[in-house]
C-alpha cells in the first residue's frame, strides 16, 4: 500500500508528525499564569491544531492508486548538489579565512561546476568582485564583512 502513496501523502504524514511534536513541545512550555492572562504556549498550540487539521486534509485528498513518477526524473541534480556543497564550504571558511578568500574561491570554482571553462574570465572576475564587494561594504556601506587572515 505504501508503494502507491503519493509524494503529497508522504508530505502530509510528515506534516502531521511535525504538528503533533510541535504541539507537545508547546504544551510543555513553562507556565507563568501570574504574569499573563494568555501564556506563551497558547498560540503555538493554536497553530499546531491548525497545522494538524490542514495536514489531515491534505492526507485525505492526496490518495492515488496510480504508481507515482519521480518529479526529479528530468532534472540534472549533480551541478546543484555541487553548488550547495560549495556554499557549505563558503559558510565554513567565511570567518576563519575571510570574505575575500571565501568569495574568490566560490566565484572561481562555482562557475566551473556549472560548466564554465574560461578561467581567463572567471578568475580575474572573481578577484575583482571579491575585493570590490569587500571594499564597497566595509569602506562605503559600513557593513563589516569578515577580514579573516587579512586582519593579521
Amino acid at each position: 500500500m505504501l508503494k502507491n502513496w503519493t509524494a503529497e501523502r508522504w508530505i502530509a504524514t510528515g506534516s502531521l508528525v511535525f504538528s503533533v511534536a510541535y504541539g507537545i513541545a508547546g504544551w510543555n512550555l513553562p507556565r507563568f499564569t501570574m504574569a499573563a492572562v494568555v501564556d506563551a504556549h497558547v498560540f503555538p498550540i493554536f497553530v499546531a491544531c491548525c497545522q494538524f487539521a490542514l495536514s489531515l486534509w491534505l492526507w485525505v485528498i492526496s490518495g492515488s492508486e496510480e504508481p507515482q513518477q519521480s518529479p526529479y526524473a528530468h532534472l540534472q541534480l549533480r551541478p546543484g548538489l555541487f553548488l550547495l556543497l560549495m556554499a557549505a564550504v563558503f559558510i565554513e571558511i567565511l570567518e576563519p579565512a575571510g570574505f575575500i578568500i571565501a568569495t574568490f574561491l566560490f566565484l572561481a570554482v562555482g562557475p566551473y561546476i556549472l560548466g564554465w571553462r574560461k578561467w581567463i574570465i572567471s578568475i580575474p572576475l572573481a578577484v575583482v568582485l571579491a575585493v570590490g564587494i569587500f571594499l564597497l561594504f566595509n569602506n562605503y556601506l559600513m557593513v563589516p564583512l569578515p577580514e579573516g587572515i587579512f586582519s593579521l
Partner: protein
Amino acid sequence: MDTSTLTMFLHGLQVAVQPENLLAVAIGAIVGTAIGVLPGVGPVSAVALLVPLSFGLSPTTALIMMAGVYYGAMYGGSTTSILLNAPGESASVVTCIDGHKLALKGRGGSALGVAAIGSFIAGTLGVIVLMLLAPPLSRMAIAFQPPEYFALMILALVAATTMGEGKLVKALISMSIGLCIGTVGQDIQTGTIRYTFGVSELLDGIDFLVAALGLFALSEVIWETVEPNALVTRINVKSPYPTLQDLKESMGAMLRGSGIGIFFGLLPGAGLITSPFVSYSVEKQLSKHPEEFGQGALKGVAGPESANNGAASAGFVPLLTLGLPGSSTMALLLGIFMMWGVQPGPLLISQNPEMFWGLVASMYVGNVMLLILNLPMVPLFAKIIDIPKPLLLPLIFVFSFIGVFAVNNSTLDLWLVLGFGVLGFFMRIYDFPAGPLVMSIVLGPLMERAMRQALTMSNGDPLIFVERPVAVGVLVVAVLFLIIPLLRRGNKDNSEIMA
C-alpha cells in the same frame, strides 16, 4: 483633497527633492532595475538583497531608497518577462503571455515602451490614491483595537494563501509552517524561550530576511542549476519606443488596468498577484479581437503591467496606515520599516509626517525617474541578462549571503538561508507556494501579539473576536476569501466533467 493634505504633500516634495533623498531614490531605482532584470530575481529578492545599501543612511532616506528599489525592480521584472519570457515574480507571469510573443515578432520595443508608460501612469494614479486615502484610512484605523487587528491579520494571511495557483490546502500548510517558525525565540511578554533547542542565536527568532532570501533567491538559483533548459536567446530590440498608434490602442487598457490594480492593491494580501490576471481577463472580454490574446496583443501587456504597478503603489496604503503588507515584497518592506524603528500603522502619519509625506512624494519622483530611465536604457539592461548563468548564479548566492550576514553577523543565519533555499526548492517541486510562508513569518508574531492583547482585554474570553462588529466583518470577509476560490474550483471541475 483638503488643503492641509496638499500642504503636507508639498512639504513631502521638499523632503523628496533634497539632494540626498533625490540621490537615494535615483540609486534605489537604478540598482533596483538592474537587479530586477536579472533572471529569476524579482522585487522581493531585489529588496532583500539591497537592504545593506541603505545601512548608514537616515531612516527617511533609507526608506525612500527602498521604495525606489521596489519600483525599479518592478520595472526590471517586466523587461525580462518580455524579452526572455522569464518572470522575476508571479505578478509578471501575465506579462509574459503576450509580451514575449510580441518580442518574438520583433515588436519588443512596443511592448517594453507600453509596459513602461502603463506602469508610469498606474504608479502615478496609485500615488494620488495613496495621498487621498492614506490619511482617512489611518484616522479610521486608529479606532482599530487588538481584536480587529487580529481579524485583519487573519484576513491578510487568508488572502495571501488564496491568490496563487495550486491547491489551497498547500498554501495554508505553507502559511501554518511560517507561523510555527514565527514562534521561535524568546516570548516578549513572559520571557519564555520557545523552540530554540538551546541555540542562543535563535533567542531573537528567525529573521524574515533569512527566510525570504532562501525561499526566493537561493531556491531560484538551485532550480536554475538543475533545470538546464533556460538558455538565453538574444533578442534584437530595434527600437524601445512604441508608435503613437500603439499608445492610442493601449491607452484604454492602461487606464482600466490602473483602476483594477489600485482597487486590488488597497486590499491587504490580494493585490499584486491577482490584479494582473483580472486585468488580462477584462481586456480579453472587452476586446473585439479576443483571439489575438495569447498571440501577441499589446493590450495584453498594457493592462496587466498597469495593474501590477497600480497595485504596487496602492499597496502602500494598507502597509503604511494599517501595517498590513499586501505581498511578500510588502512584507519585506514592513520588516525593513520595523528594522529602522518605524512602526507602520495609524500613528505613522502623526508621529513621522516628514517620513510619510517624503515617501509619498518620492514615489512621484521615482516614477518620473523610472520612465526616463526605462525607455532609453532598455537595450543596455538587456545586456545584463547576457551574463552567462554559470557566472551569474554563484554571484546571486554571494549577494544573498552578504544580505543575510550583514544583519546579525552570524554564520548560523547563513546555514539557515541555505536550508531555506533547499526547502524552497522542494516546495517548488511539490507545488507549495513560498509567499504565504514568508508573509506568515512576518505577520505571525504581530498576530500572536494582537491575539494575546485581545484575550487579555476580555480576560481570556475568545468571544471578543465575534462580539465586535468590525472584527466580525473582517473575519466574514476572510471566510469569503477562503470559500469563493473553493466554490469556483468546484464549478470549474463540474464544468470540466460535463464537457
